């Protein structure tokens, strides 16, 4: 039986406390669909990383922008879009607390069944992820996270072992 799930659109301030709210909303949507626990966990992680990128990279510190999330189910699975209206992926204001590890996009690629990144400088960034009800392959096998922790403490995609 196919559950009826409305398309969900969220718009909230791009602040750290919003990321958990999006995760809870996703859990609510997924609850009405048939995903196994492993896919649900991957979904929550990928969406968290996408939202974190918006909070950390999309806007400078004076300009509090919005974090926009859309979720829509179809016959094959759930598609989730995370979007900002910022200046495009940049190093930006990551220095507020601590430098970002730089692992967000590799994780999203490894945990989603489909992943697209769109955006041009000045036009915002959109991360589109899809998750299948029935996985044929583990995406982490198809798109493994490459690298390890680099000498500067950030993720280094070329490192074959930890540099520190």
């Amino acid at each position, binding site marked *: 039986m196919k559950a009826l799930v409305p398309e969900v659109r969220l718009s909230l301030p791009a602040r*750290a406390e919003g990321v958990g709210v999006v*995760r809870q909303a996703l859990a609510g949507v997924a609850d009405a669909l048939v995903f196994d626990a492993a896919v649900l*966990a991957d979904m929550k*992680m990928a969406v*968290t990383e996408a939202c974190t990128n918006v*909070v950390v990279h999309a806007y400078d510190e004076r300009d509090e922008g919005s974090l926009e999330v859309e979720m829509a189910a179809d016959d094959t699975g759930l598609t989730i879009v995370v979007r900002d209206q910022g200046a495009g992926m940049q190093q930006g204001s990551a220095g507020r607390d601590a430098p*970002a*590890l730089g692992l967000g996009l590799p994780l999203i690629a490894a945990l989603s069944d489909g992943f697209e990144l769109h955006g041009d400088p000045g036009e915002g960034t959109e991360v589109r992820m899809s998750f299948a009800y029935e996985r044929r392959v583990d995406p982490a096998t198809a798109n493994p996270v490459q690298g390890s922790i680099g000498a500067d403490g950030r993720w280094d995609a070329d490192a074959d072992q930890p540099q*520190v």
Partner: protein
Amino acid sequence: MDANPIVLDETANDVIVVVVEGEHDIYTAPTLRDRLDEALARGGGVVVDLTAATFVDSSVLGALLDARRRALDAGQGYVVCVGAQVEPGVQRILDVTGLVPVLPVVGGLDEAITAARSASGAPS
């Protein structure tokens, strides 16, 4: 009440256990960094206990890796434990990033405390 607490457990004397419960992401990572700083400042071994954690993201991994580096530099033992029944929201990110042997991650708390104790003071 904090639904996602991070507290220091000092009952193991020379090893401080940073107990992380619930969901943690960029919102609580600064608190985790503060607790890890406090634990490292005691000068002994440090264990991060994720047994009751249900979700950790890359912001949390960043905090755990920074603390690991400082522990290594200072010759302090540093071990993460996850318990016997690990939540997928914790295990998966450790697996796909290959960080289990790096942090390192072990199962039980007792094992982690023993490992952190024996590594403390040893040349890294």
